[in-house]
Every structure is written in structure tokens, then in C-alpha cells.
């Protein structure tokens, strides 16, 4: 099962390599990884999307916590969370195809961020449930270039259990 881990780390040289080395060295999966500084000086935030059974996920979390430069690890899969990722996709868009692509973009609230003579670049933002169908729909026009951030996630303020 896919898990999204939210990790706070000391922002110092080699910290990314420690985290990534842990995954490769112990045979864990990384589906995607995101890292950027936070508002707090010297602290970075990582979002790792990984997969494995319960025992593996437990090991991943414990092993991450064991790293000296890791401050906090939260498994967002265990709670209600907001997930977003961004995709930039360049699609061949000649003649009548152009109008159809723009309609799809409109339906899914994507932005056109660049236009060429025979191609369009769209920005798609959303969770997996949105990104996947758009990409499937766009594939038949011919995708020329594709860049994807992987998800960033945050715990929702109101958790289901609080509401019951």
C-alpha cells in the first residue's frame, strides 16, 4: 500500500543522501520525493511517497527516526490529509486537436502555461485522483515532455475522528 511520509530534517549537507541511502541500502521503495526549506531556519521538509506492507512501513519510519538529522516523521496515510502535486506536460496540439485539448484543460481546471506553433504546455495541480485521469486523457494526443513533482501533503485541520 502507498504511504505518504512527511519528514522534518535538519537542513545540512548530506541530509538528502542520508535519507535516500537509507531507502536504497535497506531495499525500501521511493515512488517520489520532495524536499524544500521550511520557514524555520535550518529545517527542511521532505515528502516521501513509498509503498510496502505494514511491517516494512513500520521499519521505514523507525529507521528514518533513527537518523541523527531527522527531527520528525509522520505517516500521513494514517490520517486525513490534503495531497497535491503538480505536473507540467507538453502535448502536440496541431489543427483541430488544439481546441479539444483546451476543453479538457478547462474541465479539469488546468492552466495553459506555454504555447508553441504545434504544441501546448499545461500545468496540472491536484491529487492523484485528478492527475491520473487527465494524463490518460491527454496521452492520445501525444505527450512530448512530462515533468511531475510528486505529492506534497499536509494533515487536515479537522480529522474524521474529531467530528464523530
Amino acid at each position, binding site marked *: 500500500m502507498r504511504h505518504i511520509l512527511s519528514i522534518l*530534517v*535538519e537542513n545540512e*549537507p*548530506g541530509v538528502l*543522501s*542520508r535519507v535516500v*541511502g*537509507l531507502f536504497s*541500502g535497506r531495499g525500501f521503495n521511493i515512488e517520489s520525493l520532495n524536499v524544500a526549506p521550511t520557514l524555520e531556519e535550518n529545517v527542511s521538509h521532505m515528502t516521501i511517497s513509498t509503498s510496502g506492507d505494514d*511491517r516494512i512501513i*513500520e*521499519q521505514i519510519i*523507525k*529507521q528514518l*527516526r*533513527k537518523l*541523527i*538529522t*531527522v*527531527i520528525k516523521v509522520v505517516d500521513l496515510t494514517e490520517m486525513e490529509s490534503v495531497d497535491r502535486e503538480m505536473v507540467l506536460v507538453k502535448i502536440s496540439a496541431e489543427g483541430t486537436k488544439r481546441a479539444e485539448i483546451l476543453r479538457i484543460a478547462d474541465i479539469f481546471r488546468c492552466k495553459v502555461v506555454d504555447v508553441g506553433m504545434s504544441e501546448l504546455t499545461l500545468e496540472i495541480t491536484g491529487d492523484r485522483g485528478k492527475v491520473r485521469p487527465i494524463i490518460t486523457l491527454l496521452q492520445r494526443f501525444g505527450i512530448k515532455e512530462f515533468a511531475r513533482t510528486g505529492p506534497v501533503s499536509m494533515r487536515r485541520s479537522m480529522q474524521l475522528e474529531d467530528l464523530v
Partner: protein
Amino acid sequence: MLLTGAQILLESLCREGVDTVFGFPGGAVIDIYDELPRYEKLRHVLVRHEQGAVHAADGYARASGKVGVSLVTSGPGATNTVTGIATAYMDSIPLVVFTGQVPTSLIGNDAFQEADIVGITRSCTKHNYLVTDVKDLARTIKQAFYIARTGRPGPVVVDLPKDVMQAKTRYAYPETISMRSYNPNYTPNLKQMHKVVDLLKKAKKPLIFAGGGVVLANASEELTWLARALSVPVTSTLMGLGVFPGNDPLWLGMVGMHGTYAANMAMDSADLLISVGARFDDRVTGKLSSFAKQAKIVHIDIDPTTIRKNVSVNVPIVADCKTALLALREDLSEDLHKTSWEEKHGSWLDKLRGWEESHPMSYPTEGDSIKPQQVVEKIYEISGGDAIISTEVGQNQMWAAQFFRYLRPRTLLTSGGLGTMGYGLPAAIGAQVAFPDKLVVDIAGDGSIQMNIQEMATAVSYGLPVKIVILNNGYLGMVRQWQELFYSRNYCSTCLHTSPDFVALAKAYGAEGIRIQKQEELVPLLTRAFKTPGPVIVDVVVEPEANVYPMVPAGASLSEMLLV
């Protein structure tokens, strides 16, 4: 007052209470060596290979309980330490390894003797540092020692660029330390401890299973109390040997691939397993699906990652072994005298004694050849168990584990996790530095000893009276044993046709050399060797194809032992 980086390093070592540094100089650390003679409190032991420096610091740490320190140069000096560091990491030994580095302006330029040692050792250190500013140096050293010895101990590398060693700054060694991302937990959850008491009260066939964590936490006394007070039998991993007296009636011997029949059968039949400071390594568990299948398992360990890593447990307790055992003792105080524990466990103990009697540790004795197991027994008898034993890796290591009775913790120094051949001699040197008056014996094989034989020069030059007993069978014996048993006797590359004359070699190094070829020479010549003041190599020609038994084949259950 302004101090150079080199001076700050050496001052800080003194502040950490370091008295010995095992090292080897080179261009990148020459500034440190230039200052070293001024620090009389620091004894530098010059080894002959950087791997030896780290193993010696490791042996020093294991024997003394202090943090071991080594100092090497950049590039090859640093890469040569990797096996030593990985050895310490696998066995959780506290070390701080200082490596030289090229000047910061040259880092990344493929400079002469440059290696990215921080990158290389990331996966085999507890933590590592590259110091790029002399102002960070004192704090980094403080953190390095703190990380090495606290929590689950381990090796820490501190990489020191040459210009940082030359740069000057105001020196103040930090008094305190606080790291928001590193706060090891020592105290157990008391609710979990109550569960252990309940399980102990109900259990009919309890077993204590001790690991290296008991040594690291200095919890041998508490463990011994628990076993004796409740009449619970004890087994241990290789790393746990010595935490419970090997001559106590409750002692079953080591468990696992080459464990005793009684210990392995006890593991298979126990209804309660109290694991203290062990990590359920594959050499201990055998086939996981049938491991301790009748037992409720209590797992006490300071490192949360070891819990549920290999084995599902009923009561996980993340805590320091000593603190947890003291809490358990406290918790037991009410029930201690309400129950006759000896009576409650009587039939279980009888059963175990039955297994011990039907399948004692033994070996074939026919023929005139000296049996390697017999050599280890004689070392025990001659020393009365009052010795520090180091081992190499292979058959010599297993016989040393099986046939010497360890009476106290920190008396067996062996590479359990990584299984590093060539560990024993430098580790013995480190232990001898820590305990100059103790008998320190390296039980070696003719293969392993050659992996760090150059350290004979270290032993001789410092007059360290280590005794190296080579069980010389002319083979890489453990691999040969596997080839014999599982690979149709295809002895590919395990026959050592051209070993040196170890007696002549000892003499060439300036040490004493003794060869033992006959049964009747064994005791008198070993005795003579142990009484000889300086380092001695004892080359014992043993039965060439002796095997280590019992043996649980890889992947089999503990109860499926091959016996003598």
C-alpha cells in the same frame, strides 16, 4: 587565546577523557601529529595499517567500555578504516574515527589522497561529520562522542580538512549538549514491565535470551540476578557471551547456528522468551517461521528499529537494558517471595538438564592429532577463565565461543555482526593497551591471522604481550566445512598450501614463536607461551578437517541440528 584546529582536536580529546589514540599519520593530518607530542596525556599507538587502528580502538572499547578513538589520514588512510568502522557499526561499538581530508578548497577536485569518506561511510556509521569551519570543531567533537556512546552505541566519523586543522579560533569546549533530533530513550514503559511480571508468573518454561546489548549497557549483574532469583535458564547470542557466568548451572550455552543442543531445544520449547539486548539476527533464529514458536516473546532493546524487524513480539520494550532490568526487579519485589520459582520451573530445568546430558558439547577424540576444540578447552583451563579472548572469524571463532567458558562480560572480543576476518589480532592489541596486565589471547585461524598479521609489529614495538594461538588446519576451515557438507566436497580455493612458517614469522617480527604438533606438548607449551613476557605466536597444528558442531544448516529450524 586562539588555538589551531589541531590543538582544539587534541584539547577536546583530553576533555573527553581519551587516553589512547590508535592511528597512522599522513599528509592531511601532519598538523595534528605535529601537536601530538605536546599532549602527554594522550598515548598514541602507531599501527601498521589503518584497518588495524580501528579494530584496535574497537578492541579497546569492547574490553574497557570506553569510547575507542582512531586517527588516520585522508584518501587511502580513510578508506582503509571502512571495514573497521563497519565491524564496529554491526556490533554497536562506540568509536570516534578522525580522518584527515584535503583542504576545503580542494574538496571535490580529485585532489591527491582525496576520498569522500563521509559519503563512503554514511551507511556504516551511526553518524558522520565533515568539519568545514574551525569554529564548529569543538561542538562537533562533543557531539561525536555523545552520539557514539549514548543510545545504541556506534562509530562516528569526523572528517577534518587540513586547512581547518591549521585555522585558528577561540576555544571553548561545550559543557552541555542538546540535539533536537537525537534523544535516545532509556526508561521503559512501566505498563509493559507489569506485563512481563504477569508473563513470568504464568510461565512454566521461561528462557532468558541475552545479547550484546547487555554488555553495552553494563547490565550483566542485573541479568544474572533476574535469572538466579527466578531460576530461569539463560542462553545468549555470540555477542552476549560473558554476561551470565558460563559455569552457572542455569547457563545453557550459546544459541543459534552453532549453539548448544540444549540452548537450541530450549528456544524451540520455551513458553516465554525474555530477550534482552539481542536483535534476532539470522544466525540466531534459523528459519524464522519456526523460531520460538511456542513462546510469548518479550523484547527489550534500546533501538526501536530492532523490534519487529525480524520477529513478531508480544511485549516490546524500548529501553536501556540495565534500566529495564532494574525496573523489572523493582516490579517483582512483591511476588519474589510469594512463589517458589525453583519449584515452578523444576520440571523445565530437569528437561534442560536432560538435553545437556544427552547432547553435551563434544568432539571426536580419536587419532593422535590435536583437536582444535581441545586447544580452546586448554586455554580455558590454563587461564582459569581469567583472560580476555579475541577471535578471528570462522571455525576458530565458533570454537572459541563453544569451548571457552566466559565468566564475565567484556572478556570475548569478536566480530559478530560483520564477521570480519583479521579482527582478532588488532582487537587483542587494543584490549591489551586497556589492560596491560591481563592475559589477552587471540584465538586465530591460519587464514584469518594473515589478514592483519602486520600488527605483530605494533605488538612488538609497544611490548604488548598478546598471545596469538593459531588453530592451524591448512584450510579456510569454515568455508571448507560448508563445501564438505553442502557443496559435495568441492574444496575450491579453501586449501591454504603456502602459509608462512608462523614461528619464523613471529621471530622475524621480534616476537616469540612456538609450534605445537603433539597432544602431549599442548599444555606445557601453551603454559610456557602464556608465561612468556612479550607477544607470542603459538602455531598449533590441528586436525585438518575438524568441523564445528552442532550446526543448524542455513535456512533450517533451530531444532534441526547436525550433531557430532
